[in-house]
């Protein structure tokens, strides 16, 4: 088991066992079924965070507007199925493709620029997308949102219960993680790691820096589009507030808290921040409007004290314990 956990694939298998537990706990009454819906959100957020993690760690860029791709995915699926009666799953693919295409259009010109222009451009895109969702009434129904989105089907089985959705969405989330791990272990992944060390060096070694950055950005948007589409099919109702700047910032927070050093940082971040969002409001009681202060403080404190995030922090500490005094690595978020 110990040697298994050293390997990403081993962790993935272990994770599958962990994920089988909650439904059993619910069955025996040891766990409230409300938690299942939170776990579903964790699956969705994990998909987006894994993509963002690739972008931050392996392309050295950040997106401040990933909620836009999440929203584009959700609205594409909602409109295709509700208005045009598009077959299920085809709309999911369409949502992923559209998110990817828009990411390509925004990323291609901006990733050529030196500096953090992708962050700026995605932020702009996020705000434009949010305004369009609110104002383009004839297509998006404006602030009142779209209702009556069907649950997904596998063959003839409709995913009616939360438990079914839980299994399906976590299965998809695990596939997303698997895809990400494979990307990291591919030729592209090695090139990306080279980028993270030094862009100039990577370019000198013949790595097409811009093209890799763009690929990773598009992949991250496709993951977000997928999550958005699945979100729409789970909630059966969507409206703009779920896809605003605040959610983009929450996604960044997931990456920061989890750390961008390994793909598992994305999972840790998604799990922690999703739980925080679910329980912090309750915990604060009458002060629940001020939960934003907590998020902001967490963001600052993690950046100041553990810039490598929790996953990175743990591995740094582990390395330190092993080798005595290894220098903590500077994580280029």
């Amino acid at each position, binding site marked *: 088991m110990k040697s298994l956990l050293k390997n990403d694939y081993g962790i993935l298998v272990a994770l599958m066992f962990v994920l089988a537990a909650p439904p059993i706990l619910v069955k025996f009454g040891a766990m409230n079924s409300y938690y299942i819906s939170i776990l579903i959100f964790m699956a969705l957020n994990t998909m987006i965070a894994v993509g963002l993690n690739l972008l931050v760690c392996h392309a050295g860029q950040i997106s401040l507007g990933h909620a836009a791709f999440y929203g584009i995915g959700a609205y594409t699926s909602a409109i295709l199925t509700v208005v045009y009666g598009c077959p299920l799953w085809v709309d999911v693919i369409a949502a992923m493709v559209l998110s990817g295409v828009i990411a390509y259009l925004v990323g291609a010109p*901006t990733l050529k620029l030196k500096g953090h222009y992708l962050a700026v451009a995605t932020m702009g895109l996020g705000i434009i997308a949010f305004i369009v969702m609110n104002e383009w009434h004839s297509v998006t129904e404006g602030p009142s949102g779209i209702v009556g989105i069907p649950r997904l089907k596998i063959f003839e089985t409709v995913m009616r219960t939360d438990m079914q959705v839980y299994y399906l969405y976590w299965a998809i989330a695990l596939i997303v993680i698997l895809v990400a791990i494979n990307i990291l272990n591919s030729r592209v992944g090695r090139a990306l790691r080279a980028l993270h060390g030094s862009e100039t060096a990577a370019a000198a070694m013949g790595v097409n820096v811009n093209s890799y950055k763009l690929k990773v950005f598009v992949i991250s948007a496709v993951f977000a589009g997928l999550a958005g589409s699945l979100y729409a099919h789970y909630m059966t109702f969507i409206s703009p507030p779920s896809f605003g700047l605040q959610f983009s910032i929450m996604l960044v927070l997931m990456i920061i808290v989890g750390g961008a050093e390994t793909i598992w940082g994305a999972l840790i971040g998604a799990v922690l921040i999703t739980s925080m969002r679910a329980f912090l409001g309750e915990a604060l009681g009458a002060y629940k409007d001020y939960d934003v202060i907590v998020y902001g403080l967490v963001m600052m404190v993690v950046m100041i004290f553990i810039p490598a995030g929790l996953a990175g922090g743990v591995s740094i500490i582990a390395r330190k314990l092993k080798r005595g005094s290894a220098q903590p690595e500077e994580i280029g*978020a």
Partner: protein
Amino acid sequence: MISPPRFFKASMTITEQILQYVLSGLVMGSSYALIALGFTIIYNGTNIINFAQGEFVVIGSLLMVTMTEVYELPMPLAFIIAVAGTALVAFALQRLAIHPLRNSNAMTLIIVTIGASIVLRGISMFIWGKDAYAMRHFSGEEPIEIFGATILPQSFWVFGITIAAVVLLQLFYRKTLMGKAMLATAVNKTAARLMGINVENVLLISFVVSGALGATAGIIIAPLNLAKYDAGVMLGLKGFCACILGGLGSSGGAIIGGILLGIIEALGAGLISSSYRDAIAFVILLLVLFVRPQGLAPLKEMMMGQEKQ
């Protein structure tokens, strides 16, 4: 935001309408220019995009509301206290969050400023609540008519104070040792340090000046808009769009970008669609990044050359 309809009379020709939009665009644009200048000063010193800039704007305007409405202080005194108070917030932000990370990369610092903006917004909500506050105009509220368009006296205060702030900033850059040190640091941090300039102090002063500029922007337009704890998100981001439009890092560009953005936004909202008003700035942002990422201003070096003379 400024709502054009309240200026309108039933029978306006299209030229009069356009003049009206340009005038209200100039007013909004002046505040964008000041916000953009604040971004530029910090960017030149540290290479970070300070996402808390919008919070300086809001804190300035809310402090002004408190000073004038609650403590009933005279306008000039309230103005000074509000600007100084915001500068103090900027000072604290730099000391507590930015300074400890001075050896980190720019992205880490940018994320810290995002965190700081969330915290500051939350604190503003805690202190002032979720209400939007109306603020007294600096002098009369009777609209003045110019060539068929109307303008509020507050607009002249906006223009005047913006110009005064820009002139003061130029004097600060050219006449004071600290100002010159700031320019030198902006051009080349390492060389500045080698010349014996205390770069740490320069960075601290950058935040203070930036906070003061943001507060000024917030205070002068507060009577026209409303002052609300969360208004800083849009104002800050639009100020940043102005920076990109003018050319990131150029102070001349920031002013031109701000004013242009204000005018384009007012014209677009008035002539095309007012429901997409807030999207206009970001569409411009994307267009500039795609087509002319260096912005409108001549290259940064040329601007720097002009400033040094």
